[in-house]
Structure formats: structure tokens, C-alpha cells
């Protein structure tokens, strides 16, 4: 069965650069979520989309933005990167609130 696809798997950027992470949810899942997980930390919710509209915002810096496109894929745009942005970034999708989320394998972002 198709899973949540994230790209790239690894990304190295320099401080102050920009990065774009992509996520392709499971077909027919109506909600997409983005999470950030620092080393040894639990995942922190960034932002979510329901049927291509932004539904919730968590601890997402103003330097970050995200959108969901007509084909349901989502992109997380990160600008003016800082060393502290180095983390694993996960995308997840779900069909409804009463089902578990399916997570992608994540993008490991390293800012140097």
C-alpha cells in the first residue's frame, strides 16, 4: 500500500538559506500535518491542512510557511535558516480524527 512520501530524505543547508520540503499524503486522506523533531525530542506540531485549507497552526516560526496544492501534496518552506532548525521534519496524513496518522520517513535537515 502507498505510504506518505517525503522528499528529500536528507538536506544540508547553510545559515540564512532557504529550504523546501515536500510531502505526498496517502490518496484520499483529507488532512496533512507537519511535525518537527529535534534530537532526542518528541515531535512538535507545526501546521496542518484539511482539504487544502490551513486548519491549525502550532509552534511554527514566522520564517516557515506551508501550503497544500490541488493535487493534495504539501510543501513546507523554510527561510533564513538557523542552526536550531536542524531537525527531522515529518509529514503525516490521516483520514479522520478517529484513525491513526500515517507518517512519512521524514526529511533530515542539517543547517551548517
Amino acid at each position, binding site marked *: 500500500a502507498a505510504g506518505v512520501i517525503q522528499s528529500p530524505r536528507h538536506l544540508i543547508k547553510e545559515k540564512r538559506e532557504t529550504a523546501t520540503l515536500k510531502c505526498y499524503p496517502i490518496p484520499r486522506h483529507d488532512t496533512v500535518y507537519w511535525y518537527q523533531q529535534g534530537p532526542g525530542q*518528541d*515531535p512538535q506540531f507545526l501546521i496542518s491542512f484539511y482539504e487544502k485549507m490551513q486548519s*491549525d497552526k502550532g509552534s511554527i516560526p514566522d520564517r516557515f510557511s506551508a501550503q497544500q496544492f490541488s493535487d493534495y501534496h504539501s510543501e513546507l518552506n523554510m527561510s533564513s535558516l538557523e542552526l536550531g532548525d536542524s531537525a527531522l521534519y*515529518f509529514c503525516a496524513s490521516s483520514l479522520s480524527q478517529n484513525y*491513526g*496518522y*500515517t*507518517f512519512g*520517513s521524514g526529511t*533530515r535537515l542539517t543547517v551548517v
Partner: protein
Amino acid sequence: SQQGEEDPQALSIQEGENATMNCSYKTSINNLQWYRQNSGRGLVHLILIRSNEREKHSGRLRVTLDTSKKSSSLLITASRAADTASYFCATPYYGGGSQGNLIFGKGTKLSVKP
């Protein structure tokens, strides 16, 4: 504030033993979910227990939920070395107009020695 807090933070057992991890949360919930994460990899959904359920089984996994104590436990029976991973509980958060985004606990790092 976090929805889930877990204990122990780390657990080391021998293969064949049972592993029990506990999770506490702070607000009313619709459901509680457990996830597994191998080092540096994605989170894998293990089991979801609804607020009106008290116990749920899936293979070697047994989850209990006590809404009066706002706590849940995950039991892995007859553990294997391949069960070595971090285990997180997570609850959907509906405060402040949220649509139920998952809030994760700190996780329990399980190490199963062969």
C-alpha cells in the same frame, strides 16, 4: 502544555521479558494513540484506543486506558530485540479551536537485549 507524559524515560530488558510503558495526559481526550519510532526513522502507528474503551489488543501489544486517572499503558509481551525503539503516546488536542492535532509525550526508549 503537553498532552502526554511518559514513564519510564528509558527501559532496558532481556529478550522474552515483558515491557510496560505508561503515559499520562492532562485534558479530556477523544482517543489515545501509541507510536513506535526506530532511531532517526519515521513514526509508525501501533494502536489507537478510544475514550470509551478500556483495553485493546494487537498481536503482542496490549493497551489499557483509564480515563479517570488520565493514563494509559502499553504492554509488549515476549519482547524481541527488534522491539528496540522509542515508543510515544499521543493524544489529539482540541483546545483553542484545534482540529485534533496530535500532541506527543516525551517517549520511552526501549532497549531489548538478545
